[in-house]
């Protein structure tokens, strides 16, 4: 392994965390989207992380293996005047939990910063190694 593999590992983590932040932002933005293109309310999405190791290796970076939709039940809001209200007067709202999304954002940004630190340290060590013997 070399310094470049260090960059690949930290870089993969940055990509994965950025995707996670994107998904959290998308969930927050669509927290009130009653109907999507398919007519159904918006379902909260989540990313699944997986170790991204070369075959035969046990170590590696991280990658997003899947973006799954949450199976939590839709939030029912009583609004009989709404155009999409059912016969009991309830409208199905997206199953987005803002607390979960904020926690995701905080945790994801903390991981992002830690990986930036890894990248900077790796870069500095590589540059110092190049000046060896001078």
């Amino acid at each position, binding site marked *: 392994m070399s310094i470049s593999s260090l960059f690949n590992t930290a870089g993969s983590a940055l990509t994965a965390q950025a995707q996670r932040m994107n998904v959290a932002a998308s969930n927050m933005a669509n927290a009130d989207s009653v109907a999507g293109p398919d007519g159904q309310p918006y379902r909260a999405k989540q990313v699944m*992380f997986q170790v991204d190791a070369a075959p035969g290796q046990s170590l590696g970076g991280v990658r997003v293996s899947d973006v799954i939709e949450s199976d939590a039940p839709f939030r029912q809001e009583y609004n009989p005047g709404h155009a999409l209200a059912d016969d009991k007067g309830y409208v199905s709202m997206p199953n987005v939990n803002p607390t979960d999304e904020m926690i995701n954002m905080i945790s994801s940004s903390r991981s992002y910063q830690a*990986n930036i630190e890894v990248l900077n340290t790796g870069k500095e060590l590589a540059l110092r190694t190049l*000046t060896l013997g001078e």
Partner: protein
Amino acid sequence: MAQKARPFLSMRRRAPDLVLLSKQGTRGKHMLDRLDASLSFYKQALDMRDRRQDVLAANIANADTPDYKARDFDFRAELDRVLGASPNSSGAPGMGLNTTTPGHIGAAAPNSVDGTTMAYRNATQPSLDGNTVDMDVERVEFMNNAVHYRANLQILGNQIKSLRAAMQPER
């Protein structure tokens, strides 16, 4: 040339080229070995620090992956193992086994650090998703390793500088 009764000169006249070549050959080989030996310890230590850097970076990258177990290895034990594999205790590079027939198994001095015994880090706090990476522990270890890497580079640089100063001609 005057024919004096000096046994050494008479030996030289019989097979001059062979004796001279073999003398120079062995002298040169010893010098290069000693040059390599003075730097080999720092080279091995630097390789191991580099490898540990990769392990810790993988831990930090996988801080959110479910069921990921944080890994690390005992630096001192692994360095002793890699250095101990060279048979010479003074630190000279280990000599490979001489294979004279096809059936002999040669053992070369290890240059890579493959075969490192990796251990799992003890989990400080339980977590719901099976992840055992504690970001604070990993970051501290990463910083510690980086400082050691820099110190190693500094010492190695000083070694090389002193070797080069020793190679300067006398003024």
